[in-house]
């Protein structure tokens, strides 16, 4: 009976969310990831396995007929407005990758510390 209760308790324990799993509901939230599937050094409190912080979420956007000011300045009849999930604060971190059969290699990268819906990156937008 004790073992059965223990197994039941294990089944009831919440599973950790998978990396880059989408948060429920609107908003822009901190998540732990390993770039290219490679674990990183700890960058965010609560992260396990040497992950770094990423920002994932759903921010509001819309597209509608262009207002007068836009029509006066350009030929575009439609205007899109929106915000995207971005890193509000990030730290530079050094990560050590353990490559099979080779020495450890160190890389620079960043780790998000906080996130917010903000400017979409125009270079990729």
């Amino acid at each position, binding site marked *: 009976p004790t073992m059965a209760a223990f197994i039941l308790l294990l089944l009831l324990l919440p599973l950790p969310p998978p990396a*880059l799993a*989408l948060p429920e*509901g*609107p908003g*822009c939230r901190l998540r732990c*990831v390993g*770039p*290219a599937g*490679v674990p*990183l050094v700890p*960058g965010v409190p609560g992260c396990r396995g040497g992950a*770094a*912080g*990423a*920002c*994932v*979420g*759903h*921010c*509001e*956007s*819309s*597209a*509608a*007929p*262009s*207002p*007068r000011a*836009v*029509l006066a300045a*350009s030929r*575009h*009849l*439609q*205007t*899109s*407005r*929106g*915000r*995207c*999930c*971005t*890193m509000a604060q*990030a730290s530079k971190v050094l*990560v050590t990758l353990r490559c099979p059969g080779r020495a450890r290699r160190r*890389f*620079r*990268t*960043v*780790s*998000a510390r906080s*996130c917010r819906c903000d*400017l*979409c*990156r*125009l270079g*990729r*937008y």
Partner: protein
Amino acid sequence: MKLHHQILDTVLLLLMAGCGVVLQTSAIDLRTFIGCAVREFTFLAKKPGCRGLRVTTDACWGRCETWEKPVLEPPYIESYHRVCTYNETKMMTLKLPKCAPGVDPFYTYPVAIRCDCDICSTATTECETA
């Protein structure tokens, strides 16, 4: 009655998963809506030399999945930024009232047929972000 509303909400959300369905603001909670859908939009069609006309049309609105994650090469941040924008449109032209002589009274605007989370194309669209 409340359950009936919940079922209606669920059915509408499932329908909108395929997009192309007009967002029923009365049945959908806009505070929690995720995705990109056609939504009714009212604007003032106006140009110099004519009287304005209030027009109701179909536009796009929603919340798209976006993210920024760390990568090992400069600039060390990879962005996936998509916005809710027109996927398919038809153009409507109306005649503005009381235009001055010599002023073209016709006003053309887009009507959304389908909306999608996508890159904002600067070739066809004025892309604003703030």
